[in-house]
């Protein structure tokens, strides 16, 4: 076997199960004893036949009849114990593994988590981990037992008569060759099947998720056909796969149990020539019948092995993802001034830089706004400040300390990040707001709700503050959710607030309420706004214009209107879109159009 650098899936799993190795060994030993019990039954039958052929009375067989019974009882007890043990340790292992993955998620860069569809984490942590269950609970003990015992039987047959030993191996060897053939088809087909399966899952999610839209616009025929095609492709993929491997499967499934094909004629000839006694012959027949069952069972696990590899890879993808390295002990922060020095950033090493050589100082208690065409990198700067990713080059300091030297928890206390997507948990409104600071009293929660302009509509809900929000906040409107999450940030009371302005238009009434809530939230704080509409930031202390990952100008609005043509264009375009009358006079520049998209 070739020694590869990366460890095999099995050694990885075995390492995950480290705490429970004792249990697994116990399960393996019990499984082996259990299968040995079955074997003992077969040997007992063989002995009975030996006695009967030798002309002994039935009475002499009694001990062997008991032997058969004992063999089966041992098998029943041991395999039950083995299965119980292996399942217990397996589910403990899986629980630990899931815990480890969840802990890992909290140490991953926030940016990585935002960039990964949440469904993907769910699939890996729930389904892929569940997929390890057969491997751990069944494969490890049962496959071991089902291989050990046939080998023992084969050795025993060889001891009785080596020629019969050889004869009994022929069909098994043919079957194994066929099994390796089907394994090759498996390796070739598996990736394709996974791809088709994913395509179907996506089609299902899209079709079901969009069914309301589809129905409302009577588009059901088109998207329905797309869905049906994906479903049929999935079924056809498995049928063709099986079609490819069915010749191998057929040979394997029929040859391995047909051990008598060689054993009977060869034994018959040997008996005829007198070199094999009838008693030995029948013993071997009985033994060889007991040989094939466990062996086929062991082979049936081969398919599992292939799936294990891809499951392990996906789980390792989470467990081994690079983490943000942060110290444990809180750092001493001089102030809440933020300085960016020569900051460069690329999502992955070797990829294009999204930001290059950004230098910026953000003084405490000022309002700084990032503006620029979409895709310019303005959100990325804000996310780097919030510690979602580590910078690739240069440094970001908060109060004189590099943010990489500040524990995540401490940084989170300093910075409140209010984004456009506001997730509300399926709990009461009160608890959702309290997430900003878990030790806040009810009165504090209600006070911030009032300040954020939520109090009115919350009290109008069926159960007031104790109304359950529904998964993802489904029972509340977009503007209401936004205000609740502002209240949440307000409760947190961090000295720095980063606000990613909503791009989607909200109705004017809500818009005004939200602006009011925001100005309450940011009173006496450092505010960093990622602006999508210039109207709200005209009075900012500093407006930073970002274009193609570069900081091209900064200053107050008057200065920028005079010095920065891009900003002047954007401002004109903003005025144009706000005031229809001006529209005809204002040429809309390309960059400025992107701004709103």
């Amino acid at each position, binding site marked *: 076997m070739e020694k590869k650098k990366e460890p095999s899936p099995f050694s990885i799993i075995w390492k995950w199960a480290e705490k429970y190795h004792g249990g697994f060994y116990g399960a393996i030993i019990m499984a082996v004893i259990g299968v040995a019990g079955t074997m003992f039954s077969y040997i007992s039958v063989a002995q009975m036949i030996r006695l009967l052929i030798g002309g002994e009375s039935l009475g002499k067989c009694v001990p062997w009849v008991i032997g058969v019974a004992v063999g089966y009882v041992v098998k029943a007890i041991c395999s039950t114990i083995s299965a119980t043990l292996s399942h217990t340790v397996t589910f403990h292992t899986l629980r630990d593994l899931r815990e480890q993955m969840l802990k890992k998620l909290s140490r991953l860069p926030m940016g990585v988590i935002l960039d990964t569809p949440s469904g993907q984490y769910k699939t890996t942590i729930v*389904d892929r981990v569940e997929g390890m269950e057969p491997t751990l609970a069944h494969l490890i003990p049962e496959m071991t037992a089902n291989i050990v015992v046939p080998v023992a039987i084969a050795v025993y047959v060889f001891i009785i008569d080596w020629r019969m030993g050889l004869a009994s191996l022929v069909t098994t060897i043919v079957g194994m060759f066929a099994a390796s053939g089907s394994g090759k088809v498996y390796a070739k087909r598996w990736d394709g099947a996974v791809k088709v399966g994913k395509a179907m899952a996506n089609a299902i999610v899209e079709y079901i998720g969009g069914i*309301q839209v589809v129905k409302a616009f009577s588009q059901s025929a088109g998207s329905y056909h797309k*869905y049906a095609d994906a*479903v049929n492709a999935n079924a056809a993929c*498995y049928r063709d796969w099986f079609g490819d491997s069915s010749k191998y499967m*057929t040979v394997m499934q029929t040859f391995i149990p*047909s051990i*008598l094909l060689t054993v009977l004629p060869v034994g018959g000839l040997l008996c005829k020539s007198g070199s094999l006694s009838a008693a030995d*012959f029948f013993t071997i*027949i009985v033994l060889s019948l007991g040989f094939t069952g466990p062996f086929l069972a062991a082979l049936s696990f081969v398919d599992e092995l292939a799936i294990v590899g891809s499951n392990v890879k996906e789980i390792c993808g989470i467990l081994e993802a690079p983490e943000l390295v942060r110290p444990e002990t809180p750092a001493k922060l001089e102030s809440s001034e933020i300085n960016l020095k020569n900051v460069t950033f690329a999502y992955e090493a070797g990829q294009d830089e999204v930001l290059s050589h950004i230098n910026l100082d953000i003084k405490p208690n000022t309002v700084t706004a990032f503006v620029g065409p979409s895709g310019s990198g303005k959100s990325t700067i804000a996310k780097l400040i919030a510690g979602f990713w580590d910078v690739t080059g240069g440094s970001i300091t908060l109060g004189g300390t590099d943010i990489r030297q500040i524990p995540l928890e401490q940084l989170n206390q300093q910075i409140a990040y209010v984004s456009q997507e506001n997730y509300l948990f399926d709990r009461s409104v009160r608890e959702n707001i309290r997430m900003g600071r878990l030790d806040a009293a009810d009165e504090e929660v209600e006070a911030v709700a009032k300040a954020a302009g939520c109090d009115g509509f919350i009290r109008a809900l069926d159960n007031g503050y104790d109304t359950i929000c529904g998964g993802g906040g489904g029972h509340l409107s977009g503007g209401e959710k936004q205000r609740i999450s502002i209240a949440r940030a307000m409760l947190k009371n961090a000295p720095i607030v980063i606000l990613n302005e909503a791009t989607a238009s909200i109705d004017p009434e809500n818009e005004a309420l939200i602006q009011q809530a925001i100005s309450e939230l940011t009173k006496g704080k450092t505010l960093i706004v990622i602006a999508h509409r210039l109207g709200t930031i005209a009075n900012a202390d500093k407006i930073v214009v970002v274009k193609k990952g570069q900081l091209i100008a900064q200053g107050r609005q008057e200065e920028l209107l005079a010095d920065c043509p891009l900003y002047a264009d954007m401002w004109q375009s903003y005025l144009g879109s706000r005031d229809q009358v001006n529209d005809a006079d204002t040429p809309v520049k390309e960059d400025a159009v992107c701004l709103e998209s």
Partner: protein
Amino acid sequence: MFGIIKKIFRFSGTKRNVLTRAVVVAFIGAVFKALQFGALLYMAEALLGGTAMNIGVVLGIMIVSVIGRMICFYFSANDETDAGYFMVAEKRIYIGDRLRYIPMGYFNDNSLGNIKAVITTTLGDVENNAARCLVIIVGGFLNTFAV
């Protein structure tokens, strides 16, 4: 248990005939399998009862048994796969079709999540297991009665 078997047959829709054929062929395969005990019996009678033994007969019976089993396994397993996956595909499409005509009021996040889970996970379990279980169980029963 018979209830479940009946359910699987009802579930199989247009693949019902294919599924039935898989069961019948699997049963014939089992008859071929039983043939090897005929060879064993012949051998036992010859060795213990002292009747004349022709090795050719033993070999012949065994070859017929193995070839018969191979043919039956091949066709039954292919039918079983075809029925197993396509009956589920049919149901997935059926559900998708029904959704086009269900009143809008039926949908909310919850019911959509449930439908998604049924179409992906639950039917996934069915496609992997139902047909095989049915062939094994019904085939096994027929065998017991035949023997």
